[in-house]
């Protein structure tokens, strides 16, 4: 297995929408390397013909009858929002300057 580089950690952090400090990059690169080396052992045993298990119980869609039921009010749904305007979640602008 390939070792995980500092640049790779920075890339993964960007993909994860996670700003990380220079110090964290150094720290995580070392630690993730150790963790990945330890967990790479999963490759030793699982042969091609072994089916994967994603969940210990069979996953099925659960539907309810299409009947109106009480639900959260608009105020309740917005009660934890960092910012709201006109009964809606207010978000920072979505497009960058250059967009």
């Amino acid at each position: 297995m390939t070792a995980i580089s500092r640049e790779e950690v920075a890339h993964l952090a960007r993909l994860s929408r996670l700003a990380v400090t220079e110090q964290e990059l150094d720290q995580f690169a070392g630690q993730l390397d150790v963790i990945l080396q330890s967990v790479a052992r999963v490759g030793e045993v699982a042969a091609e013909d072994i089916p994967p298990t994603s969940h210990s119980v069979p996953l099925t869609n659960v539907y309810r009858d299409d009947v109106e039921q009480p639900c959260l009010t608009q105020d309740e749904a917005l009660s934890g929002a960092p910012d709201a305007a006109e009964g809606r979640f207010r978000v920072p602008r979505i497009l960058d300057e250059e967009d």
Partner: protein
Amino acid sequence: MTATEVAALISGGEASAVEVATAHLDRIDAVDPRVHAFLHVDREGALAAARAVDEKRAAGAQLGPLAGVPVAVKDIVATRGVPTTAASKILEGWRPPYDATVVARLRAAGTVMLGKTNMDEFAMGSSTEYSAYGPTNNPWDLGRIPGGSGGGSAAALAAYEAPLAIGTDTGGSIRQPGAVTGTVGAKPTYGGTSRYGLIAFSSSLDTPGPCARTVTDAALLHAVIAGHDPRDSTSIPQPVPDVVAAARQGATGDLTGVRLGLVTEFSGEGAEPGVMAAFRDAVEKLVKLGAEIVEVSCPHFQYALPAYYLIAPSECSSNLARFDGVRYGLRVGDDGNRSLEEVMSLTREAGFGPEVKRRVILGTYALSSGYYDAYYGQAQKVRTLITRDFTSAFERVDALISPTTPFVAFPFGSRTSDPYQMYLADLFTIPTNLYGGPAISVPCGLSEGLPVGFQVMAPTMADDRMYRVAAALESAVGTLTPPPL
């Protein structure tokens, strides 16, 4: 006093629910500054719930078996109107507009919620050192960890701040804290208790369950919270086995005809000698109670820890994407000049602690193109192999036994610098989470003056079996009492 004893006092009219709640709230005031088991104490809510029980009793209404009994709830479980943070800065001050199913069932049963207990942030950790609000101290030795991630719930029990608590177990977070605090913690069958209203960490593994000081108390709480929930698509639509009757049967101390499998692969490598000695003493006690011990090989258990540390971070990296500073929780850097993406990154940087960031990045890596097959895909195959190990073992034995943890409570800071050393704390508990079956930790003795836990693992939906064995062992060992605080 146990939950059973408290319930008897209240139903017999010897104490009111308000008196019981007040006594526990006073105890929290007296000791929690040193233990720090609670992140939030809901004094008014608890007293109101207790008054409601007393009024019902006065009106002659039939009370449930746990009516008026105080319970502490891990802070990853949503409680309507009561702060719920998952011990993270990103949810500081959040008050959910709804109750988790387990909480709704606790309320319906007339239990009295005292407050929310400390934990590792988003349940990621084995020591409660990763709480954003500071660690919980183990009542047995305040310089040592109370286990994790449910260290707050376990410490609240060991410090007599609550007779019952709710935990969640993803890789051992109910059982491991139970073991290192000398209390009882049970992970029900996955799907046996509803995950609705739990802040999701690893959805295919997370299981809410009971924490208590005795096996019977744990069974009583299990019976209240378990059962099918249409709001959780993984909830199993089958009746819950009678765990209370099984615990009472076990408490008679008779295990004649019960076959217990000793997992060969857990023979002690990597475990402290004192832990293994206490475990072997407990096995001898079970033999005296009539149990037959059979050695069983589960060759893939050694791959459970690596598989878990790929599956859980992968699911967490996806689940934690919802903490984006839009609908609830923290928002950082929204000065009108930054884009949504920048605000999101800054919010998550400020809101998540180091272990959460590590796992989000690890999960993103394991799921990324080019590595998916080698890591996540392989881990899911290991999960199949571990399930096969359990299935073939349960063809020969009624339940499997092992120590709960390889070591007793360790001093703060001794494992935080090397994450993989910390992950080893869950070595014996993780196989069960990958398989989905129930498992319980019950105190079995001391090593170096600190509690050792004994684990009983049972087949899926045979939760009653583990309660029977655990209660029998408890009858032989007795409950452990920590030094006075």
